[in-house]
């Protein structure tokens, strides 16, 4: 009986694990296919590692939105080692590239934080249209599944119907939402939400902020103000500031990450819309240059289409290993 129970329990657990891994793979399969296709082509030519082949490899990394600087750095390291080890085999070259990219992604990844004193405050920031509100909803569901109590704060008081949109996510996840009317002061509603979270002993407070281009100084100052408001209320908050970034973003992603980090103190990236054909390779560049880890990936429009980032799965999928 126990054995049966144990067996079935184990069985139930296994597919779940595989499920996340599989879905992650699935999400980046298209990326992988594209990249690995060009890799195969190069590999076929790479009987001897010549500069031209490595040049081509660099271009394919660029095509995956890794960016010129990152691609060049990765390739120069690869070039050196390939020459030292007298690598002639394409598969070995690919393995080396895999190690290189995974190392970049892992370098600044930190284990999930344990918040000693609730509420944990998480700010979601980013440019317009990346999926902050959707991610707020999915994150609410994610924390609910972990058995946490969650409160949503509708601090996007600018975009038309952003509050209504978050309200619907609140209903879907059974999470309460603190809001004001459109055009209200986002810091004020944040203050209310912080109060409410404390009074109700909420575990996690998710703050959905308005989308803003990182070049708009006034709007970036507003984020800074929100961060300070949070800090005044809870000294070591916000505990996490997530930059929500569209996986289709090109090299401008670097600039976004840089300026949002300056104003809002970004601690991690959420890479959304990874279920398309976009590669999200800019995340590698961001990890390398700004030391920011990817925390979550968005892979669809449903409640549970948010997965914790898995660098091994991401890299494997990316390179088709």
């Amino acid at each position, binding site marked *: 009986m126990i054995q049966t129970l144990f067996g079935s329990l184990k069985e139930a657990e296994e597919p779940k694990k595989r499920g996340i891994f599989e879905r992650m793979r699935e999400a980046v399969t*298209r990326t992988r296919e594209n990249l690995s296709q060009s890799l195969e082509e190069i590999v076929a030519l790479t009987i001897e590692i010549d500069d031209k082949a490595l040049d081509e490899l660099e*271009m394919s990394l*660029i*095509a*995956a*939105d890794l*960016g*010129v600087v990152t691609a060049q750095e990765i390739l120069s390291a690869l070039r050196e080692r390939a020459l030292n080890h007298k690598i002639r085999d394409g598969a070995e070259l690919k393995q080396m590239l895999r190690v290189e990219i995974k190392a970049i992604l892992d370098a600044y990844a930190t284990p999930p934080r344990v918040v000693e004193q609730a509420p944990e405050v998480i700010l979601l920031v980013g*440019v*317009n*249209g*990346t*999926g902050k509100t959707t991610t707020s909803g999915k994150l609410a569901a994610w924390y609910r599944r972990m058995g946490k109590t969650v409160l949503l704060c509708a601090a996007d008081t*600018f*975009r*038309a*119907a*952003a509050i*209504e*949109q978050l*309200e*619907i*996510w609140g209903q879907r996840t059974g999470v309460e939402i603190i809001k004001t009317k*459109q055009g209200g002061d986002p810091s004020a509603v944040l203050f209310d939400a912080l109060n409410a979270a404390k009074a109700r002993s909420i575990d996690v407070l998710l703050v959905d902020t308005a989308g803003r*281009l*990182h*070049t*708009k*100084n006034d709007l970036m100052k507003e984020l800074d103000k929100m961060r300070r408001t949070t800090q005044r209320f809870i000294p070591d908050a916000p505990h996490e500031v997530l930059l929500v970034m*569209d*996986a*289709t*973003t*090109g*090299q*401008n*992603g670097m*600039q*976004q990450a840089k300026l949002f980090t300056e104003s809002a103190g970004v601690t991690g990236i959420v890479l959304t*819309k990874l*279920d*398309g*054909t*976009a*590669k999200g*390779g*800019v995340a590698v560049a961001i990890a390398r240059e700004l030391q920011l880890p990817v925390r979550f990936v968005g892979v669809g*429009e449903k409640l549970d289409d948010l997965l914790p980032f898995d660098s091994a799965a991401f890299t494997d999928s990316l390179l088709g290993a």
Partner: protein
Amino acid sequence: MFETLSDKLQRAFKNLRGEGTVSEENINDALREIRVALLEADVNLSVVKEMIEHVREKAMGSEVMTALSPTEQVIKIVRDELITILGKDTARFNFASRPPTVILMAGLQGSGKTTTSGKLAAWLQKGGHRPMLVSVDVYRPAAREQLRVVASSIKANIYEGDLKGEPAGTPLVERLAKEARREAVNYGCDVLIVDTAGRLHIDDHLMQEMRSLKALLSPQEILFVADAMTGQDAVRSAESFHQQLALTGTVLTKMDGDARGGAALSIRHITGQPVKFIGTGEKPDAFEPFHPDRIVSRILGMGDIMTLIEKAESTLDRKKSEEFARKALSGDGFSLEDFRDQLRQIKKLGSMQSIMKMLPSVGPFQGLQQMAGQVDEKQFSRVEAIINSMTKKERNNHEIISGSRRKRIATGSGTSVQEVNQLLRQYAQMRKMFKSAGKPGMQRKLMGSLNAMRGMGGMGGGMGR
């Protein structure tokens, strides 16, 4: 900040001096720099490759003219090539011979379809049309509510329709679209803008819905709404949308950011359809027809000087400016009165930030854009207030402004004597600079005005409290 294309090319061509022509060896470095610049601007790799070959062909063996440096020459070839790809003219908008003209908005999630629908309606209203909006996005939470709010803010007609508890799906989408067209006819609206749900180009089900919407409405325009920040993937999504829907044009959104907008080139190249509009801000009127030559400068990091010139021409008083330039460069120098006039003119152009953004990021203007963020707009008002508190006599002859006069001016303008001193000092410097710039030599003139601008920026920073 990263090196500009022009710097890189200059370095690549350093060894070229003394040689009469651009040769195979010496152009390779330059082409590599161009390739990197285009890739940094998010132009698609295959588009870049194709372009580089064209540029190589054109540049090879071409005479190194004395008028243009090799760098300038290659940049010119690249520019011309980019403009050729983008098409020379601003694209026209198609209207139906029998209204209503139907415009279908298509694109990925978050590209800005709803915002753009509103802006397009406002733009059409300004052109004397009577547009009607409808949202058939029955999937994203509050999407239809968003368009309703947008429509009411620009006072545009909207068909809201009644979902009648019908489940989200293609039948509901088709019903809303059909009803909206009938409504547009009934209300005498000549354009119907259909805002659709964002979808991935690989989502067969939703793409099929898009095709049936097209069959149902026979739209005159199917606009692909794309984010200017899109990277290499722009080609894939645009190609797929185009294959399935036969797009008629593109709207490039979020162009008010600092993305170089290389996606425009990729999308244009892959669809063969023109970029028709760009979105340049969050307000309903931040929307303009697309000018290929301008984005080319931006992709190459050369600024949007055409827009600036156009804006300047339409808002500035040309006679006053010429008068100022003549005075400033002549032996008399300009007075504080003239200075205030200029200040007011500049203010008419918009914020300092928006002006600086349009300047090239290469050459003598390098560094100005980064400065833009640091300029305190309030400084302009403060400077103006100081000058306003002077008498006419003082404004025309700053040398008579004694200590007691300075004190009076400071009190009158709500500033401090130090600030008044600083303004006077900067003014004197600028005046001198302009005067020396008035002597022959274009380069020096340019530097003179540049320094003057720097001086103003510095004044802003220095006087902040």
